[in-house]
């Protein structure tokens, strides 16, 4: 047995060496957890105290000096963790800008998105600090303070070789989307109808089951463009600027998204809307969205429960 065992050991060592070699080849891709891939924070992220803004928050929160925020750090670039484990992204930046001006400290409560509603109702945190798409059903039970407009954006190869500037330029092109998403269905149906109405050729549609391969189809030129959520489009363009480019100015089927508080906490909702307006006015909001390549999603002012736009 021993004599036979030796070659096997050698084979095992060879396998390990091979595996390490292969892993080494694959590990230089910049990932979301790579601090090197995260752009620097705006200088005035932490702003000066605004006493009038602090007065707008409910007395209990003012007294505690702490705003408890429920977050699901699994959705780059909105909210995720860097390689030190710190919660980063568009929403944490906005939280830092708002709480510093209102003289409050942040207390993060990590909770998966499907546990947000229960956590709010059980008062485990004051605000669900996630991007809730504003829908009529949700505004029945929640006050949604909308701070961005979302929707479908278009991602093309760097340099935009197909010259896509408007949604109408997609007619006659190969366009990819992930199977089962609104982009592969409602958005694509709308675009096809628009192309037909203006007498332009049909979109050649490429449906792929994984978003990674949808991205790859544009990277390799199998598709001229892809349709996806505008936050994802912006983030991909930021992660691989040599490969991708977000087409600015195309936002299809827009829907506004915001942070959520319970329906009865209108004072808190109004205070948050005022806080968003303050950082929109002083330009911090714009810098934060630019940091995460989300400038297309900017709103001129915060809105509470803006259903239907």
């Amino acid at each position: 047995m021993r004599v036979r065992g030796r070659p096997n050991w050698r084979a095992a060592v060879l396998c390990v060496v091979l595996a390490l070699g292969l892993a080494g080849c694959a590990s230089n891709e910049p990932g979301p957890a790579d601090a090197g891939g995260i752009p620097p924070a705006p200088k005035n992220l932490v702003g000066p105290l605004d006493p009038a803004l602090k007065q707008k928050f409910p007395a209990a929160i003012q007294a505690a000096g702490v705003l408890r925020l429920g977050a699901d750090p699994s959705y780059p670039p909105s909210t995720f963790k860097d390689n030190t484990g710190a919660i980063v992204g568009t929403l944490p930046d906005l939280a830092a800008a708002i709480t510093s001006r209102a003289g409050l400290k942040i207390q993060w409560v990590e909770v998966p998105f499907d546990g947000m509603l229960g956590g709010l109702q059980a008062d485990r945190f004051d605000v669900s600090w996630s991007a809730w798409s504003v829908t009529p059903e949700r505004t029945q039970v929640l006050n949604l303070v909308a701070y961005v407009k979302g929707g479908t954006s278009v991602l093309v190869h760097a340099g935009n070789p197909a010259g896509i500037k408007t949604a109408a330029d997609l007619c006659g092109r190969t366009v990819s989307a992930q199977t089962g998403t609104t982009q592969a269905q409602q958005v694509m149906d709308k675009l096809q109808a628009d192309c037909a109405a203006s007498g332009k050729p049909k979109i050649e549609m490429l449906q792929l089951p994984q978003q990674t391969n949808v991205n790859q189809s544009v990277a390799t030129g199998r598709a001229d463009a892809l349709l996806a959520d505008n936050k994802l489009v912006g983030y991909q363009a930021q992660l691989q600027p040599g490969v991708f480019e977000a087409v600015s100015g195309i936002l299809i089927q827009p829907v506004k998204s915001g942070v959520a508080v319970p329906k009865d906490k209108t004072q808190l909702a109004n205070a948050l809307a005022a806080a968003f307006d303050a950082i929109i006015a002083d330009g911090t909001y714009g810098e934060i969205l630019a940091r995460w390549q989300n400038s297309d999603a900017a709103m001129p002012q915060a809105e509470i429960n803006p259903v239907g736009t």
Partner: protein
Amino acid sequence: MSSLRTSPDLDQLVALSDTRPVRRRKPGETALVAVIAVLVAFGGAILFTNPRFDWPTVGRYLFDVSVLHGIAVTLELTVYAMVVGIVLGVVLAVLRQSASPVARGAAWLYIWFFRGTPVLVQVLFWGFASALFPQIGLGIPGGPMLFGVDTNLVVPLFAAAVLGLGLNEAAYMAEIVRGGLISVSHGQAEAAGALGLTRMQTLRHVVLPQALRVIIPPVGNQVISMLKMTSVVLVIGVRDLLGSVTEIYSRNYRQIALLIVACIWYLVMTSILTYLQSRLERRLGRSVSPMRSPQDA
């Protein structure tokens, strides 16, 4: 068993009926038959009483245009991939038997690589080959490209699917064909050589026809396996049978019903192939084992 065969009345019976000997049923077998009958009955009852199977939806989509189109794509992929696989597989098998160590080594290397990596990865690789080679053409390695064409134009997605499936299949076919070639006694080739046939003539007229008998049954298996394996092309967006039903249920959320539609069609196609395979095997086996074929017996 040999003592049974020598019993005179059994021999008589075999001679009279010209069929296989009658076998007495063992007591345990009756119980087994009963258990299987109950299970089949339960299974059948569940199929028809559980409304979640959603048979009306299955019926509505069974002959849907995009499902039928998907079947056509699946059949095309199977045929093209098997043609690539068989032709290349025969070449590889012959190379592996070659006198030249370089040819043997090259064939070994091919089989090692294509049999050693998952077919899903190979299909993804061909689908997105231009990530590695944006252009295909003539050029100096490490130097400038003299003449090149966009890889995506040379290898459209359907061709990428055929290449991914076919090149993988060739590695398996090579081993099957090699097994067939080895099964033909060496004396056959020597005799052909003595008659003045060249190596190629020997291969074509003496060795391959005899090897076919050993090769055909596993090839039938490979065709049936390929018919189902084509479904992996959905990862690169080729709309075969599975791709078509996936697209339908991503819109109407009737996943189980649509997957049943796909299964029904896969079963129909594999049943036909199984029947054809048994016919072909009978035909090829005719000259060697006449007992198998009723009309010759």
